[in-house]
């Protein structure tokens, strides 16, 4: 009898803990819809911010800016992350991979604002201006360790027998790696990329002194650019009620983007499981 009760209680506690995991997200999402839903309309997606006092306006420039920054970050993060991950998984000599793996984990733990300082020193100072390029570099550096480690792990999951089949067919090693191993790992790598994108989409700190933000359409990659996260930050600390509502709506759009990207990542993983069974 006692055993049965203990079992029930523990079952309940574990279930409740699992339920608590989704609670914060549900609360955040619900609160955002409550606060920002009313400001969210077509205009929000298609119009520019209005000056203080004028009602309406949107964050079209920030939405586009975030997409541009994500695109630039991918230009940095994907080639380095994917090729590097491939190397970690395939290298015969374990010494360099060990060091790289360790440092990648360290890089993953570096506060994002520090990475912002890195991009500031490397791009903003020499160029003497804030720019989309600097923001993209900062976000790209944040992507690298995530993409690197997922790629490595997924490539390791590709059965050795497939590699052998390719080699035995008389294919050179690099062709086996690119055309068979990488292709087989494709779905998993896509997932890793999505996770990394979801991670950087909402980054604010590294953009503060790189992309800087912009109340207008950006006028070139070497110029400051708006970003949703930055705009939300700027509006949230402003003293105007109107802007507060816009900030809520911006946050709602941002979290929805992350949600959609994560969902896409999940669906891509499903494909992978079917392939490797």
């Amino acid at each position, binding site marked *: 009898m006692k055993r049965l009760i203990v079992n029930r209680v523990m079952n309940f506690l574990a279930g409740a803990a699992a339920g608590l995991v989704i609670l914060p997200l549900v609360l955040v999402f619900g609160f955002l819809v409550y606060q920002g839903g009313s400001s969210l309309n077509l205009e929000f997606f298609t119009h520019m911010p209005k000056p203080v006092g004028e009602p309406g306006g949107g964050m079209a420039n920030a939405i586009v800016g975030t997409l541009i920054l994500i695109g630039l970050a991918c230009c940095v993060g994907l080639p380095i992350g994917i090729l590097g991950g491939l190397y970690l998984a395939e290298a*015969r000599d374990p010494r360099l991979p060990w060091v790289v793996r360790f440092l990648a984990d360290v890089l993953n733990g570096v506060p994002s604002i520090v990475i912002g300082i890195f991009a500031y020193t490397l791009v903003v100072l020499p160029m003497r201006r804030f720019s989309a390029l600097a923001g993209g570099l900062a976000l790209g550096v944040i992507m690298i360790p995530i993409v690197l480690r997922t790629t490595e792990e997924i490539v390791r999951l590709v*059965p050795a*027998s*497939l590699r*052998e*089949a*390719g*080699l*035995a*067919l*008389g*294919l*050179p090693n690099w*062709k086996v790696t690119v*055309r*068979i191993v990488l*292709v*087989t790992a*494709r779905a998993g790598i896509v997932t890793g990329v999505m996770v990394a994108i979801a991670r950087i989409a909402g980054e604010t700190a590294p953009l503060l002194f790189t992309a800087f933000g912009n109340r207008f359409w950006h006028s070139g990659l070497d110029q400051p650019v708006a970003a949703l996260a930055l705009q939300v930050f700027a509006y949230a600390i402003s003293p105007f009620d109107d802007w507060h509502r816009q900030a809520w709506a911006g946050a709602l759009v941002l979290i929805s983007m992350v949600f959609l990207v994560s969902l896409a990542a999940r669906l891509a993983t499903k494909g992978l499981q079917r*392939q*490797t*069974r």
Partner: protein
Amino acid sequence: MADGVQVTGLNAWFGARQVLRNVGLHAPANGVTALIGPSGCGKSTFVRCLNRMHEVVPGARSTGQVLLNGEDVYAPGVDPVMVRRRIGMVFQKPNPFPTMSVFDNAAAGLRLAGVRDKDTLHEVVERALRQAALWDEVKDELHKSGSSLSGGQQQRLCIARAVAVQPEVLLMDEPCSALDPIATAKIEELILDLKKELTIIIVTHNMQQAARVSEWTGFFLMGELIEFGVTRDLFTAPREKKTEDYITGRFG
């Protein structure tokens, strides 16, 4: 000159451990040579030395001479990739490329080597699948994933993939060990067909299989080739005591 595979003084190591000792044999062209012996006796390593797949394993090396139709596979300057194009291989577990369709699997060797022409590919795929006795079963679902086939079909697809590049030799490393008797019978039939065009070397744990499909048989034990001869003689009148013990089931 087509005289099959001639091996002399082959030694192989994994790190410091020697797994093949001074092995020599001649697998004649257009014949089937079976290799039998208990697990871990070096049969698989032996066939992997023939197409230079042994050296792919970290720490593995080998010495000795392997002549493929008269040309030394280990001569300096010989590219292992070219050797593997001439010596195809089928593995123990069927390993079709999971992201590719049946068609793409059969075409993989040519396509990844740069052949683009659609007519050529179609021709080659159909010929290979017919050779592998798979064509009639899959001709209407060539676009389906290679891993959606049954185990026996997958193994025949792997055979098709290997013969599509028209190798001179086909190595089969226990090709039936993961298959049921019906699928096994199909593959054995296929072996008898294929030998008209190429030289076959098959590793098997199944002595009946060796007796059914091969003209020559070699018996391996602890990394040494104990006996090599005409299959019927080796099974009915073995010269070596160890061979006799093994085939009569006294060990292994």
